[in-house]
């Protein structure tokens, strides 16, 4: 079933992890965009994700991805540390989304086994440019403010005095001036190293210049030295020893401060207003910083615990497990219904056999449920689509998700992501009106799209409902007429049947072709993708109130409902979804044309007959049509009558692929795979679309 490439485990893990991180990041961005602001937590989270991506891609030698992630990381580092005001959020988010798109494309290439050759330099330049412009803004602001205040408002301070409260209770106060060796480079980082070193050792200290995170502080450090104002209980000697350890230290002067007030007042004056102004954000920053340093505390640890209860297993392993369980069920039947037991009265054996049966059934259910994945991931990706579309088309749409916890088989999820995206795009493009038109119609300015999933028997219904203008019946009919898609009896079509026309190939109702939809492939791709997984699409609409498109998809691809038929000694399974009816043909209904092609007349319509025994050259005794059975199958409007010996029964079967050896040897027409029947024998699954078009 799975044709997944066998990647190197490292690569596989990288792809898996990075994809998850990117998805996570997209979610964060969507929420931030809604709130139009970043919280400190979110910035930290984004920063962390970018950092991880950078690290792992650099390790895997995907330098382009690493460089891009690095640039993004820089941007968020700046945001985190500097908290610039008045930043254009949508601009940042656009930049990040562009970056994510790039990473996604590269990941796709990796999964397909292609070379990772994308060029990220343009994006990176963009990011750098943006970061520079941000920094520029920052500088202007700083200059403005420093006019009114002689001290630089941006500060870096580390204070342990908060806990101790009253200041001045320390025994000593010093001023230290440090000069670094010439040409040691990155003086600001050296200074930062000093600060890090002192932190934890000294009770309270401030430093000048304060913005040592910034390269711009370098000249000041060079000319005036790096100055520290220290309050401590340690003695002169101890402090000197501590500072002497500084790397690249050229000169150190340490003197006591007598007049505490004058020396420390600039810092104090600065501190108090900041704490009042932005106390909350500052505090949250501090706590998060601590949490980051100490991974055993705070939020990161909590999320790590969440991860522990979930493990990732490759689908191939699950398939194997399912095979084994299926085999066990057969083996169980072989034991409990063994012919050797016939006629024996074995009460205890029967009891034990029933117990075994109960357990195997349960096991089978569990294995099936393991393959089920909630739709939430796919649904949430649609947020991104909606966002992009709204931006491009200047429309306002909010997306509501209902029932995202509904579970479907992993394989199905892969198949419905694209159709869903097409449908959402179509709804926004064709359905939802421009804000001013909506207002004129008396609707709310912003449109709503509801994406809903629910279980219905062995199917899942996914509906996309918008409150836009709905389908235009006349337009659809006119368009269908233009493209020769109208059936002859079009006057009798019901509304629903008319709406169904939009799923025909080559149909597109929008007058102008837009970037997103209207190439006339969208809806038709949707319908064929969905029927490829054995589902169906229906459309409904109320004019001016909106349209609803409903996808009916089976829960799983691994199990299908099949009708098993017998031809000679061979068994074939026909997917029940394609079966229209089965019957014994009457002699009077059989027509043979001059080319010896057989046809069947059923209720006034003539359908071609395909003799399976001839088609597959199977020996059978039943060669007269009236002695066998006809199974009428239909796919995409085309009908075919399959002639078989007899019907065996209808049951759910587990689909298995034909062995690779046979597949590489020859492509066999009309075979979709094979399956194991209850008695352990193999039945071949017919590929109805393949047979009809053969």
């Amino acid at each position, binding site marked *: 079933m799975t044709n997944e490439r066998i990647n190197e485990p490292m690569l596989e893990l990288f792809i898996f992890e990075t994809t998850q991180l990117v998805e996570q990041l997209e979610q964060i961005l969507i929420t931030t965009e809604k709130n139009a602001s970043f919280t400190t937590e979110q910035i930290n989270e984004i920063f962390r994700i970018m950092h991880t991506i950078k690290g792992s891609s650099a390790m895997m030698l995907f330098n382009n991805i690493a460089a891009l992630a690095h640039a993004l990381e820089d941007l968020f580092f700046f945001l985190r540390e500097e908290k610039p005001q008045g930043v254009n959020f949508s601009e940042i988010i656009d930049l990040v989304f562009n970056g994510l798109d790039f990473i996604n494309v590269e990941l796709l290439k990796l999964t397909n086994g292609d070379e990772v050759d994308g060029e990220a330099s343009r994006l990176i330049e963009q990011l750098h440019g943006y970061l520079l412009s941000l920094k520029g803004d920052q500088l202007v602001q700083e200059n403005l403010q420093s006019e009114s205040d002689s001290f630089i408002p941006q500060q870096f301070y580390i204070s342990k005095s908060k806990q101790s409260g009253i200041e001045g209770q320390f025994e000593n106060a010093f001023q230290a001036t440090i000069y670094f060796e010439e040409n040691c480079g990155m003086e600001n980082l050296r200074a930062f190293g000093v600060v890090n070193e002192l932190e934890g050792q000294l009770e309270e200290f401030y430093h000048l210049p304060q913005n040592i995170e910034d390269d711009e502080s370098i000249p000041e450090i060079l000319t005036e030295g790096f100055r520290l104002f220290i309050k401590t209980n340690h003695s002169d000697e101890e402090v000197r020893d501590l500072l002497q350890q500084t790397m690249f230290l050229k000169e150190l002067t340490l003197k006591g401060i007598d007049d505490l007030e004058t020396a420390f007042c600039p810092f104090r004056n600065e501190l108090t207003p900041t704490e009042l102004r932005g106390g909350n954000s500052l505090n949250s920053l501090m706590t998060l910083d601590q949490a980051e340093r100490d991974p055993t505390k705070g939020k990161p640890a909590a999320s790590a615990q969440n991860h522990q209860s979930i493990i990732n297993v490759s689908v191939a392993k699950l398939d194997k497990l399912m095979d084994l369980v299926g085999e066990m069920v057969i083996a169980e039947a072989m034991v409990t219904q063994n012919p050797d037991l016939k006629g024996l009265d074995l009460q205890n054996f029967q009891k034990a056999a029933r117990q075994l049966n109960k357990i195997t059934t349960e096991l089978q259910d569990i294995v099936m449920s393991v393959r089920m994945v909630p739709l939430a991931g796919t649904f949430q990706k649609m947020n991104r689509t909606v966002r992009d579309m709204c931006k491009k088309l200047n429309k306002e749409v909010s997306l509501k998700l209902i029932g995202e916890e509904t579970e479907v088989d992993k394989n199905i999820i892969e198949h419905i992501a694209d159709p869903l995206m097409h449908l959402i795009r179509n709804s926004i493009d064709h359905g939802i009106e421009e804000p001013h038109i909506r207002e004129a119609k008396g609707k709310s300015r912003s449109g709503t799209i509801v994406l809903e999933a629910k279980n219905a028997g062995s199917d899942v219904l996914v509906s996309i409902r918008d409150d836009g203008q709905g389908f235009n019946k006349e337009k659809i009919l006119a368009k269908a007429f233009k493209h020769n898609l109208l059936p002859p009896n079009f006057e009798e079509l019901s509304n629903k049947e008319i709406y169904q026309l939009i799923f025909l190939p080559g149909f597109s109702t929008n007058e102008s072709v837009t970037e997103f939809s209207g190439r006339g492939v969208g809806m038709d791709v949707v319908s064929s993708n969905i029927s490829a997984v054995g589902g169906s699409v229906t459309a409904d609409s109320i004019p001016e109130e909106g349209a609803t498109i409903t996808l009916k998809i089976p829960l799983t691809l691994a199990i299908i409902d099949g009708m098993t038929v017998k031809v000679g*000694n061979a068994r074939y399974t026909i997917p029940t979804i394609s079966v229209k009816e089965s019957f014994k043909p009457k002699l009077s209904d059989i027509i043979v044309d001059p080319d010896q092609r057989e046809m069947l007349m059923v209720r006034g319509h003539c359908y071609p007959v395909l003799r399976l025994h001839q088609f597959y050259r199977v020996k059978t005794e039943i060669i007269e049509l009236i002695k066998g059975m006809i199974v009428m199958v239909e796919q995409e409007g085309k009908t075919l009558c399959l002639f078989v010996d007899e019907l065996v029964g209808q049951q759910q079967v587990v689909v298995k692929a034909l062995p690779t050896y046979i597949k590489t040897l020859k492509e066999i027409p009309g075979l979709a795979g094979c399956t194991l029947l209850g008695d352990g024998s193999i039945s071949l699954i017919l590929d109805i679309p393949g047979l009809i078009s053969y």
Partner: protein
Amino acid sequence: MVAEIDQEFLEEEDTQKGKFLTFLLGNEFYGIEIKFVTEIIGFQPITEVPDLPDYIKGIINLRGKIIPVMDVRLRFRKPFREYNDRTCVIVVDVLEVSVGLIVDSVSEVISISKGEIVDPPNLGKGGSGYIKGIGKVGSEVKLLLDCDKLLNEKDLESLENM
């Protein structure tokens, strides 16, 4: 690459080196390297798959795994012989492709040292090349099969015939 690693790995495993599983096909003994052999099963009902060369008899269910089976007699253009209870299916696994080989009967696993293996005589144009070497064991000779070639080289002639 996988093959190389396998090779290395297997060369370390002395137990498998130089050992061959021998089986009977008509009057000749054949041998295949033991490293390719997954298991030997008794003959079991085969599901026919249409439109395949006649030497591919169909598919069987091996504990939930579906594998094709090849009648080695037919593959070597020997006359078909009815299957009986001596008939065995040797399941071989070459580069992740599993195939069952139907043989008249399986005899034993023997060690043949490199020195005892000689190249097959060049019989001119008629050779199919499925024989990699000829092993001498006592007075008998065993024809050593090239498994890789047997499975992966397409039999052009029979494909054209169809």
